[in-house]
């Protein structure tokens, strides 16, 4: 994420902890009271320029416009589907927002309950009504592969700086991986390699707070799949 910066100590704060009393502005998940900044959530203190905020350690996924997520069809209407995207609110997917031409009432022919789809958040309004779309490159219904879930706060570690982590996993395991901002990750590939990718991502989930994660994960995958050592580099797109 672009807000990455050098953090000398990773200080864990709880709601109500004083973050700063020297006049810094409140960043995300922080609030000001009498000129002092307090934490508004359980997380890690984060200073950026002249603002101080908190990076949450957990919590529910809150959709933002432009996020790509993985959803599971929950309910079918005559002109829309209701999709569970792990948010506090259901996300309706309208027939105009799918890449197929759907006749009124024919919705169930295209997507059934339990189907997994890749989506983009089209809009979230102030009353948190969500609209999602499948009309974008790479968005489609998912078939095969494995779906794993993790806390959405750790997704940024799976992607890595500028996508370095996910690119490395893709290169080493030869898998197709799609990471949803809502913490759902879809992995498809050869049995062994896909399992290794799943294990690697679980490793990231467990060790999200540690530094040098990319190196550790690379070592882990190379140990699990010694033969990929030769393939390295060939997969670069």
């Amino acid at each position, binding site marked *: 994420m672009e807000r990455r910066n050098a953090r000398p100590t990773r200080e*864990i704060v*709880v*709601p*109500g*902890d*004083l973050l700063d009393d020297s006049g810094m502005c409140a960043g995300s*998940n922080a*609030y000001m*009271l009498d000129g002092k900044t*307090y934490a*508004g*959530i*359980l*997380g890690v203190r984060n200073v950026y320029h002249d603002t101080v905020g908190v990076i*949450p*350690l*957990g*919590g*529910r996924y809150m959709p933002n416009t432009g996020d790509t997520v993985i959803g599971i069809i929950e309910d079918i209407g005559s002109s829309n589907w209701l999709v569970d995207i792990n948010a*506090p*609110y*259901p996300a309706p997917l309208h027939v105009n927002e799918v890449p197929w031409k759907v006749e009124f009432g024919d919705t169930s022919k295209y997507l059934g309950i339990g189907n997994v789809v890749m989506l983009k958040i089209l809009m979230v309004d*102030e*009353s*948190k009504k969500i609209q999602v779309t499948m009309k974008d490159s790479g968005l489609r219904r998912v078939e095969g592969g494995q779906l794993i879930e993790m806390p959405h*706060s750790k997704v940024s570690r799976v992607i890595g700086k500028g996508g370095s982590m996910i690119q490395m996993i893709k290169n080493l395991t030869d898998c197709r991986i799609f990471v949803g901002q809502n913490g759902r990750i879809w992995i498809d590939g050869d049995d062994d390699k896909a399992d290794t990718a799943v294990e690697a991502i679980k490793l990231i989930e*467990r*060790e999200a*707070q*540690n530094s040098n994660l990319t190196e550790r994960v690379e070592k882990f995958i190379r140990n699990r799949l010694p033969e990929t050592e030769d393939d390295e580099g060939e997969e670069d797109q």
Partner: protein
Amino acid sequence: MSGHTDMVLVDKKGVRIDGRKADEHRPVHIEVGVLSNADGSAYLEIGKNKVLAAVYGPRECHPRHLQDPTKAIIQCKYNMQAFSVSDRKRPGPDRRSVEISKIIAEALEKVVLTELYPRASIDVYIEILQANAGTRCAGLTAASVALADAGIPMRDIVPAIAAGKADGHVLLDLNKEEDNYGEADVPLAIVPSTDEIVLLQMDGNMTRKEFDKALDMAFGACHDLYDVQKTALKNRYAISKEDEANE
């Protein structure tokens, strides 16, 4: 408050039946994240009280008519287990537990940033496993820790403790005997960063002077409890960090 006893609740030296002084609270222990299926949870022991709190959400508010288009609602359920008291408690909601659920939900609403989640509901479940007076305070204390553990945005954590009067003495954190045979019981919950009161009730009689003294003691103890809550939350995440470093 009701019964009479020949028991000496506070002896001449000012020591109570469980060995505490008047302004001492019972030993507190809080554990965070004890339940894996809930979004957040906490287990709390204060003296002989044992309380489990679990939090779900924010999620879609279920009885649809309860939804508030401007903010999230907090639904709280306080429940005493049948085995929590020495005479079996008839299970199910009763007048007392409905009241406690309501006041705890209202106290939590003051600190949770509910306006971030319009139309949603945050569900808090409090189970009293063992009761020894002061369970509403214990329940609220545990519930606010569970809320923080669930990653719900809130202004502060709420500690709660009771003060009261027994044998003519103003006492902090009444136990069962002092509560049953005492003269008054005042549960208090505050927002520590601003010292706002979010829960205050009184059962029994006290003079104004005694009441002020009780309130002072309870305020002090709330701040102590607040430190225990914060340490419990920080420990939970610090330990997981160390574990990972050792791997």
